[in-house]
Structures are given as structure tokens and as C-alpha cells.
């Protein structure tokens, strides 16, 4: 299946992926609506800008994910290879944050967990990838 892969040597550290992700999942009609608001994207840029190393981190959609096996609410599962969360069941205990070895999960504004679902609910190609100006993240088969 297709996943998001990172080419860190191309990452500009521009954080556009974070904004495109937050916008895609916001229900807003215009990205300008995010201006001045704290965003809660499902992808985040890590690294050291001074050293010139930056890269985007989002869910790896592991083939045998620890978060699924560890969720105390049975809220995380696999659907056609995509690791998805049922926010109705999540209670915000953060056990998934404690176990994800990639540090890919963070809660939403309401304290309930959210995660990258490859924009399966947003119509196709992940918004973070579509908006990346330098192909530092790609949506591809391995």
C-alpha cells in the first residue's frame, strides 16, 4: 500500500505540511482561517534548523503497530492497512503516545487523540504531500 515517506535531504523546514494537514482536517473553507490560531496537525517537523537537518514525522502505518495492541480503549485499529482511530472511543489516556517509537502521535485540541489516516477521509492524496514544495515527503509504494 501507499504510505508517506520522508526525504529529509529535501526538507526546507518550512512547516507547510503542518498547516496543510491542519487545514485539511479543519472543515474550514479557506486556509487563511487558521491565521492566529494554534494548530493541531497530525504531522510535525522535527530537527535542528541551525544544523540544516529537518524532516517531517507522521504515522508510519506500521504493519504490526504497537499503538493498536496497546490502546486501552480498543480505539485504534487497522483498516485496509491504514492505522485509524475511533475518536468516539478514545478517552485521551495517551498510552499510544507512550508506546509509539516514532513519536508520531499527539492529541487534538480537545485532548482526544487524532492521527494521520493518509487523508482517506479527505479524498485521496495526503494534503501534507500535495502541498510540500520540495518533494521532501512523498506518497508512494515503498
Amino acid at each position, binding site marked *: 500500500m501507499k504510505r508517506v515517506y520522508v526525504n529529509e535531504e529535501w526538507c526546507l523546514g518550512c512547516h507547510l505540511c503542518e498547516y496543510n494537514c491542519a487545514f485539511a482536517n479543519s472543515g474550514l473553507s479557506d486556509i487563511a482561517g487558521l491565521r492566529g490560531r494554534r494548530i493541531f496537525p497530525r504531522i510535525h517537523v522535527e530537527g535542528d534548523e541551525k544544523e540544516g537537518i529537518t524532516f517531517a514525522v507522521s504515522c*508510519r502505518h506500521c504493519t504490526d503497530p504497537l499503538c493498536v*495492541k496497546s490502546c486501552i*480503549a480498543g480505539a485504534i485499529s487497522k483498516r485496509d492497512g491504514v492505522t485509524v482511530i475511533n475518536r468516539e*472511543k478514545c478517552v485521551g489516556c*495517551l498510552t499510544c*503516545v507512550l*508506546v509509539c*517509537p516514532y*513519536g508520531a502521535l499527539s492529541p487534538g485540541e480537545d485532548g482526544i487523540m487524532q492521527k494521520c489516516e493518509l487523508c482517506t477521509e479527505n479524498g485521496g492524496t495526503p494534503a501534507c504531500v500535495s502541498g510540500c514544495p520540495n518533494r521532501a515527503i512523498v506518497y508512494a509504494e515503498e
Partner: protein
Amino acid sequence: MNEYVIIGNGVAAAGCIEGIRSADSEGRITVVSEERHPVYCRPLISYMLEGKTAPGKMNYRDEGFYERNGCRVIYGKKAVSLDPVKKSVVLEGGEELNFGSVCVATGSSPFVPPFSGLETVEKKFTFMTLDDAEALKNAVTGESSVLIVGGGLIGLKCAEGLHGLAGKITVCDLADRILSSILDSGCAAFVQKHIEEMGIEFMLSDSATGFDGNTALMRSGRKVKFDVLVLAVGVRANISLVKDAGGECGRGISVNGRGETSLPCVYAAGDCTECTDISSGARRVLAILPNAYMQGHAAGVNMAGGEEDFDCAVPMNSAGFFGLHVMTAGSYDGECDDMSPESGIKRFYVKDGYLTGFILVGQTERAGIYTGLIRNRVPLSEIDFELMKKIPSNLIFSSKIRKKRFGKVVK
């Protein structure tokens, strides 16, 4: 055709069912469920009190789970004995089930010390099952004074759950601090202060020795009035089936990474077992949900003739108390690196060049990066340890490792 019997119907049993089915789609599976509920998320009972979830949303698997996996579930019956030679399990009422292999996933039970006068207390509860939580919810009103005996995870999550329902909540514990099994004094005091600010009262280094109706007689000589009593002193692994059959047990049923007990064709998984904690090398009961699922799954795969070794068990907990998150993992017997900021706690424990444990309070972002270092026994010489102590980031790994983590399919 293989005959599988699973005794217990919690998360370890669910893992076992899924493990069996990953290797054998044909064999017959019989599940013995003492509780009259399909598998549900036991750790959510405090969230149910709080209103953050409801019984209808607490199911661990969907409605078609047992049918899809070809399981027969016997509800409301307890297994009373296990015969590893005859390969049979006897249920209360006398029904006998024969097995090719069996998984004992009987969980744990609340430990209730022999308090004098406990029988004179009208409204008393333990806090372990969905039925316990529903009964407790029905017994508490806005005027109730609740006394919780036990300041561990169960007692404190219960206190949080009851906060909006009860008039007054007091927690007592014989230990000198709360959460004594996972926090040292400094960390415990920090968390305690936060919980006290929400109006919960504590009586530490003191506990009930007996009861007289609605009065608890404390070790210190004090008397505490209450309307509702919750006993959350601790839990004991349910080991008797295997122990009575001659299987090796410590505090829990002794299992290896494959879920095997010392008895042939008898497997065990979850809170009733003890296994090797790789962060310390010690044999321990690791009564946590992720462990239960993974042990159950490994047992199931091996019962069905496959190969799975769950060999990276570590203790770990993530729990929020009134918005303050506490995460702990591993063991604390190494050298402590205290990186605590003013607003929280961040402590790392290091031994022989490996991260063995950590305590995080309030600063829990991306903590799984740390847990991964413990679980995967990553030598600290291979990462940027100084950076790791400051921020949890994938930058601690070399670019080569990062390429594997983010440029490939990962397990």
C-alpha cells in the same frame, strides 16, 4: 481439528483468539467467561464514572468478533479445575471441556485484607469490573462522603471518576506517598498536590484497620466517617487453576515469551502471569493492558503451531489525573538523570549504557521514543543521549537509522 480452550474473556483472551486465528482458521475455540459481558476495556471503568465513555462504547472488539472468529463463549461460568494429564477443564456446575491446548487468562482479583467489622459496612465496593463500577455509580450521590482505601492507580483513577458525582472524597494509604509502586516521594508529592487542588483529601502513612458501620477506625487512632467505601488496596493474580494443577507459579503463573507455563499444552497470558521484565531482568507480574494483549497473541500463535515470542515486556503506565499526565516505564534501579523543568518532572534512569526507565509528569510529548529505547535495548552510545534528555526527537538517531524509520515500511 484442534480444540482450544481459553479461560477468561479479557484483553489477553482477545489477543489469544486473534493469535490462534492468525495461524489456524479451522480449530474450535471455546471461551469461558466468568463475567457476563463480551470483552470490554477494563481500564475504562473510571472514565465511565466520569462520563468520558459509556458501557456501549467500552467494547474492546466489534459485535461480530466471536462469531467471525468461530468462538463459542460460555458466559457466567467459572473454571474450577484444570487437569493437564486428562487435558480437561471443569467448570462450576460440572461441565467438562476437553482441550488440545488451553490458555489461562484469568486476570487478577481485588485483594481485600481481613478488616474487622467489614461486614457491618453497608455500601462497600471493589473497583475492578464494569459491574463494580456501575454498582458504585448507583450508590453514590452528590451528598456522599466516599472513603477510598488505597492510593495506587486504581484508587486514584476511582477518585477522579467519582469527583463530579460524590460530595467528598478521601483517599488513605498505608504507604507514605501516592502511586507508591511507580513514583518516588518527590514525584508523588507533585502529583498529590495537583489532585488535592481538585478537592480530594489524602491520609497517607495511615490506613483503615477496621470498620464499624459508617466509621473507619484508622491505624493512627483517628475515626473517619463515610457513606460509601471503596477497597482498592491491591490486586492478586488469579493463579489457582495452574498452581493446583502443579504448574510453576510465583506471584503470577510463570510463563516464557511463548506464553508457555511449566505444564504441557497449558499456556497463560495477561494479569494472571509473571514474565521477565527486560528493563531489569526480574520476573514480575506486569498487569498492564498492552502486555496482556501481546502475551495473549503470542500464546495463541504458539498454541496453533506457529512461532511468536513476546520477549520485550516492560512495565509502563500512562495515566492522567485531572488533566495532569503521568507516564512511567521500565525500572528505576539505574543512575538517575533529573531533567525536570519547573512545571513538571522528567527523570531518566540509566544502567550499563542503556536507558532502563523514566518518569514523566506533565511533559509527555513523544514519550514513545524513550520507551522504544528501553524495549529495543538501544545502546545509548548509538544515539545523541544529551539531546535525548532535552527533547524527545528522532534527531537523536543517525541519519542512516532515520532513513530506515521514515523511508521504508516498518513493522
